């Protein structure tokens, strides 16, 4: 493994595929959500339209350098996370730049975008941006606890931190998936997934009712476009990470998209069923329930691996 220029092209291809997958899943999910709520809902290709519209619109407003760079950080973070994850197991075309680092890199790179975004929003000068960021960061860091524990658990179980090797260890049928071999850890991970995706009951970040305006208001047109682009890649990247870690990864695109869809749908379903937490509830919840669960999971995993 190592860097070769051609891999940039492979990576661009992968990004293109996953971008579209992300856009479609977004549309479909919103549609399903509407149908469940007995509404007609949007067209499934609506995200494309929104995106194009945003990119076409022009805004000459900026609040400063960081405001301008915020979305750049955001998208760089999303793309970076994606690019450090191997997508299709065994494929030399779709392994991205996973050779630069392992799961730890991915775990920490997730913050790159959040941080940049938060900075950008901060410079916007809007008080609600700050409140939103404050809540968002608090929520993400709390939710990350479960994620980190889950990742460490997987690391313990397979005695590696390399995502590729983790996937490799799960090959050979559903019985080898982490989901089956270590269900407790998977439950924890899926809770973390809810938090990481900002889905209900952990959707405090946007909290539209409470913060009617904030980053989304200050960021519009092109800025919003870039953020929307990110929204179709970043969640996919996270989902793929979970697929790789807990659901055996994927050896081809079909399996991958299927698994992405299923995992993604999990968050949607839960979000429909549970009401939203207040942010301090959410934090307390992670510390009170997820953390002990994680500790138990780690102990169990140690026993399994040992």
């Amino acid at each position, binding site marked *: 493994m190592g860097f070769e220029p051609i891999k940039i092209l492979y990576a661009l291809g992968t990004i293109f595929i996953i971008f579209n997958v992300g856009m479609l899943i977004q549309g479909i999910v919103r549609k399903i959500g509407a149908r469940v709520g007995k509404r007609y809902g949007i067209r499934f290709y609506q995200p494309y339209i929104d995106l194009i519209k945003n990119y076409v619109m022009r805004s000459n407003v900026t609040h400063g350098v960081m405001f*301008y760079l915020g979305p750049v950080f955001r998208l760089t973070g999303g793309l970076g996370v994606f690019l450090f994850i191997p997508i299709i197991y065994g494929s030399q075309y779709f392994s991205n730049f996973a050779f630069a680092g392992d799961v730890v890199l991915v775990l920490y790179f997730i913050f790159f975008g959040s*941080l940049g975004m938060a*900075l950008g929003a901060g410079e916007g000068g809007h008080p609600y941006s700050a409140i939103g960021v404050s809540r968002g960061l608090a929520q993400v860091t709390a939710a990350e606890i479960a994620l980190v524990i889950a990742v460490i658990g997987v690391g313990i179980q397979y005695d590696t931190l390399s995502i590729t090797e983790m996937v490799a260890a799960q090959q050979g049928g559903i019985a080898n998936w982490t989901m089956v071999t270590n269900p407790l850890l998977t439950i924890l991970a899926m809770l973390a997934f809810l938090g990481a995706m900002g889905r209900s009951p952990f959707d405090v970040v946007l909290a539209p009712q409470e913060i009617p305006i904030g980053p989304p208001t200050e960021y519009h047109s092109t800025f919003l476009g870039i953020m929307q682009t990110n929204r179709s890649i970043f969640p996919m990247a996270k989902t793929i990470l979970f697929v790789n870690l807990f659901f055996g990864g994927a050896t081809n695109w079909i399996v991958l998209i299927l698994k992405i869809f299923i995992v993604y749908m999990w968050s949607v379903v839960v979000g429909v069923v549970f009401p939203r937490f207040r942010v*301090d509830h959410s934090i307390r919840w992670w510390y009170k329930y997820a953390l002990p669960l994680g500790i138990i999971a780690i102990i169990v995993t140690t026993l399994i691996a040992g």
Partner: protein
Amino acid sequence: MVSPIYIFIIALGIGFLLSLFDKAGRAVAMTIFYGALLAMAFISGQWLLHLLQGAEAEIITTAGFQPPFSINLKMGLLEAFFTFLINTLGFLAGIYLLPKFKSQKIYGMILFLMLIMGLNGLVMTGDMFNLFVFLEITSIATVSIIAIEKNLKSISAGFKYVIAGGIASAFYLIATIFLYRFTGVLNIAMMAETLNVASSQAVFLSVFILMIAVIVELKPFPANGWALDAYEAVDSGVVAVIASGTSAAMLFVFYKISPLLNNTLLLTAAGIGLATFTFSNLLALKQKNAKRLLGYSSIGQIGLIITAYALLVRAGYARNSEIVMLTTGGLFINHFLAKAGLFWLSGVVEKEKLEEWSTLRNNPILLFAFAVFVIALVGLPPFPGFFAKWQLVMTFANQGLFFWIGLILLGSFLEAIYLFRWLGKVLKSDLKAELKAKISQIFPILIYLLAILIGGGYLSRLINQGTSLSILYLPVLFIVFLFFIDFLPVAIKNTLVILVGSYYTYLIIPQLSGYRVMLGVIFLAGGVLLFIPGYFKRGKRTGFYPLAVMMYVGLAGLLISENTLQFFTSWELMTLGSYFLIIRGKKSEPHALSYMLFSIGGAFVMLFGFGILYYVNGNSMALSSLGNIESMAGIIYALLGIAFLTKMASIGLHIWLPGAYGEAEADVSPMLSAILSKAGMFGLLMLMAAIQTANLGSINLPYVLGWLGAITVFIGNLLAIYQEDAKRLLAYSSVGNLGYILFGLALMSHMGWLTSITYALNHFLFKALLFLAIGGVVYRVKTKNMYEMGGLIKKMPLSFVSVLIGIIALSGVPPLSGFAGKWLTYNAVLEKGWYLQGVIVIIGGLIAFLYCFRLIYAVFLGQLKDKHRQVKEAPVWFLIPQVILIGAIMLFSTYPAFILGPVGKMLNDILPENALIWENLDAYSIYGHWNGFLIMMITGGIFVIVFLWLYFLNRKAQKVKQFNIVYAAERPSRPELTHVGYNFFAHYKKALGSLSQPYVTKFWNTMADIFHSSAGFIRRIYTGDGQTYILHIIIFIVVVYFLTIGG
């Protein structure tokens, strides 16, 4: 050679005639008086020189008969030394009292002369009854001269003094006559030869009474209320003689009668001394009157000296062996000079309350003297008390007297509390009054200042065990030189320090090996770098440079020290220097105190540990022996560990840190956080390297440290997010980061140590950067509260960039260097199997994001305040080191292999299991892999592409006005309303309330309360009633007797 008897002839002859001379005029009398004092000093000084050259001790017989038939005097080396001290003290105290002598009746001079003569007699006489006569001369002269101030306080103190002295000498007399009965002689030396203490109970009792009478004169707890009153009330010039001179003579009397004592009695004496030392220092905690405080301290010091002497003699050391002289002599000289100096200062200040001594700040030389005396009393280097205490602890340890060491260190610690509290108040409290110092008062003080410095220098030869002198002493000389050129402006001194510092770095670094190189770079190169901001200061910055350099010399000394004494000395020098740096801050006095107390507490624990090491390893002071300890390894490591953890502010011992870092000056905070904190790390590295090879038995110290480190990370970071003060936020963040370092070390694996060193290096880089940047901001906006800032990115863009880089590096987000630490942590945790601790560490790391964001947001983003519209970018001298640090961070982030590779190799000597393999820029562990360079390139690449994409789409963006935001359909008018900065993470606090309670602070406060209230309770025994004091003396005698024969 002038016979020593002339001391008495001169004193008596002139004393008798002085009132006649006075009739010829006061000037005549005074000339003769000072001439007599000088002549006495000269005689003893001449004998001292003579005897130092190896002459035989002189026995002076009187009336032409040999002892025991006549009274004899002795002038040996010790006698010469003591009389020289007493006579010079007499001369200097005489000068100090000159104005009083001039205006008062001639009796004052006569009494003073008689007092000094009496003290000489106590030292020189070899006859037990003659000693009684001199005792009475001293006592009556003292009591009479107390009346130099004729106010109610000193008169009533004098009355109590005379009664107590009368009772003590009554008992002395009883003992003398019975001893005469048992031995048939009065000569003390011959008495000791013939006396068999155990022969009968009456003999034992007589010797006991003798001893207790002498001890009562030495003011033991609790039979010392009379002495305390005298210390408080009597004129400063006189009390200096009482505290130093009389104590010296009485100690020598104790030394003289000690051959009579058997082991039981020596133990009793030691016990009394220790109780006195501990209790007087405890009681002094509540004291607000300066002179009484000094009284408590004097009494305590004398107690310590008694303990040291009695126990050493009991352990079999010859009475005048080198060890005994080094320890008790060193302690004694230290006390003698410092206490006289401080009492003299009390006369200059003429204020009772401790904080009113701040008037000393009007005179820098006297302030310096005050600080030196106080520090010497605490027992810090480079003063004699330090070396003596060291030697004492080592020798006690050698004898296995650990219980005694423990209590001595406790007492010393209590002493340090009130002395440093006082020092802090003097340095910081409001300056109200003028200071009128007469030259006659300053002169003696300066002489003793000089003497104590020379004494320290002389004793410091203990350090020199094979290390080249130039390395040890040249830096110290440089510090002294800096004191002398302190009147120069900052620019010159700063340049000088940077140049010399660079050269010293160049000199030292090649001499280091292993992980020391790494720390050497941080300590020295980093130190030089952090001097650059110093240029922004105008004026002289009095006292900054010598003390800052002292801190760095201490740090460098740690690296090159080869034995425990060098290490400990360097450690204390560093602590002392840093204390003075911290206390320079505007509101830093209480924090500097708590820093100092934790440091000294830690240092004493370390001293204890080194003592046990010395004991266990067969009297070896070599630091290398740390690695092959035969027994008691666990306790030694634990003690040393606690000491180092104090400096590293691990949880439980961290409460000093936020205030100290937060309140220090702008360019001092980075020094403390980035550099000083690594001293603890260095100690722990050394310790862990030793643990690697030592047999720890059942104690799993690394495991404990691991948990401690993990919890420190979590709590430190958690508390950081609640801070409103930007510098305190960074300070708590330092606590957290030092927790990572601790955790890494505790892992005891190659990977763990690499993690730790990576963190250390990284923390040095980003914390220096952050503290400098924030320091610059604080310097400009004149507040440290983040919610009062905001929007400063527009005014201070360069500082913003620094903080941005800093927080990314801090939080561990790739691609900057912080990620290296995180990655290594995961690997190390998995390798070691410390999953739970690892989880806590990592969660702690996640919390760091919160305060990182808050720091940059609340300061630089959001709404700019009206009052900050004219703020300029931070001074250029702040920015220069920031640029260098950013460069270093970038380099480290892009090419981690270049640094971590060699560091890994350094560690191979200690921990050979190298779990990390470097292939060019790729790092492979058994778990994963990581390529810092690629990550940087990929991230950079994406960033540039996305940025270009945005720029292409939105290239004409224009900056809008500050309030061009949509805000509930209104335009806000005041930035204060729209800048959300206060209590930013309120919800986090709400969610995790119980974890953010200041339990640790409460714990330490409770401890302090317990000490203070017990002190307040116990000291009520000193009712002020003379009769009670008599009762105390008798109770003391009786109780000690029954304790002695009972146990």
